[in-house]
């Protein structure tokens, strides 16, 4: 296979573009896709103060690397979730990435700063594990961005993540969730602006970015997430994609362009009155926000080892 641009030996085939690329021209293609996403959806400018939510995995390290590479001012935020050895190792990858490049990495630990971890929150709150984890991360990301004076919060959601969520919400016709599944959520009611610059790039392309750029990341899957519904949706879409390259791209990007505008009136929360949580000050519809309720239940609970959570069942 030859690179589509320079005709040198290709290192990767990208069937959805019907193209093959050498290393440098593959990186150029990724940069172009990120720049197009940033421009098309008015994500950010070089004057913004950007906070990147970093997990130590390929997507978050790749998006941080790309933004720095493109000349943006971006700090990182890592949240230690207390998922046993998995969290310890993911934190080491995030820290090593930042240290090697002289970047600022803010670190928050659920156990040290809030008195609980994800396995304990799962049991204490009787939530599914990914729900307790997601709620904790969203709250801490939002709070860190607002408190730190950042104007944009970046997450490493890629095309596969967005297509899988869209698939799940479409199967159930969750109109309220569909209406808010956009590459940009504007700042509102005390929440920061949130953007997803990787929505035009696939999960495979992000892993390849890291390999070509020499970025070490945590390859192993979260032991709690293994077997969840989200992964099942990705697998289903990849089976379709293998037979019909470009399907994921068309499914998600055409939704954003053609369908999401029709659903705008269904967006959750636009007509809801929010007030500051009496404990943490974050915007909420109740007196005490859901995160503070989770902290209260979880911190009072005896610590739960991660081994008790893994393999609890497939539907998460």
């Amino acid at each position: 296979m030859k690179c589509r641009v320079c005709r040198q030996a290709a290192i990767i085939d990208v069937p959805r573009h019907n193209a093959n690329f050498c290393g440098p021209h593959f990186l150029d293609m990724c940069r172009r896709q990120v720049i197009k996403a940033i421009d098309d959806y008015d994500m950010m400018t070089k004057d913004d103060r950007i906070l990147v939510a970093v997990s130590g995995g390929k997507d978050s390290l790749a998006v941080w690397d790309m933004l720095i590479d493109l000349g943006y001012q971006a700090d990182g935020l890592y949240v230690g979730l207390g998922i046993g050895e998995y969290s310890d190792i993911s934190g080491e990858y995030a820290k090593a990435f930042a240290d090697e490049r002289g970047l600022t990495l803010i670190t928050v630990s659920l156990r040290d700063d809030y008195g609980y971890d994800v396995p304990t929150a799962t049991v204490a709150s009787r939530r599914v594990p990914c729900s307790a984890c997601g709620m904790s991360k969203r709250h801490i990301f939002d709070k860190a961005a607002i408190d730190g004076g950042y104007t944009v919060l970046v997450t490493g959601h890629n095309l596969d993540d967005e297509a899988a969520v869209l698939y799940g919400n479409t199967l159930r016709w969750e109109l309220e969730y569909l209406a808010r599944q956009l590459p940009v959520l504007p700042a509102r009611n005390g929440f920061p602006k949130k953007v997803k610059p990787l929505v035009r790039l696939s999960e495979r392309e992000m892993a390849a970015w890291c390999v070509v750029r020499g970025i070490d990341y945590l390859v192993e899957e979260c032991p709690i997430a293994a077997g969840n519904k989200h992964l099942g949706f990705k697998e289903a879409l990849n089976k379709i994609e293998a037979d019909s390259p470009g399907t994921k791209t068309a499914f998600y990007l055409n939704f954003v362009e053609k369908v999401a505008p029709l659903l705008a009136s269904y967006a959750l929360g636009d007509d809801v009155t929010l007030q500051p949580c009496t404990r943490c000050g974050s915007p909420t519809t109740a007196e005490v926000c859901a995160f503070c309720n989770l902290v209260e239940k979880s911190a009072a609970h005896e610590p739960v080892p991660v081994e008790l959570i893994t393999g609890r069942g497939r539907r998460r």
Partner: protein
Amino acid sequence: MKVLLRNPRRELEIDGPRRVHALLAHLELNRESHLVIRNGTLVASDELLAADDTVEIRPVISGGAW
């Protein structure tokens, strides 16, 4: 050839030479969900892998909620 797989981490010995796409098909792995790496470098799907090569097949799918 020696093939390193992840999640869970394990090693297989597979007859070679084989092309990358043939190796993935043999292992019933979707190319959309995997990268093949030889000596730290990505290899495209029509690349011929030698019998004495050592390759990593790296899954690229990660999940969980945000």
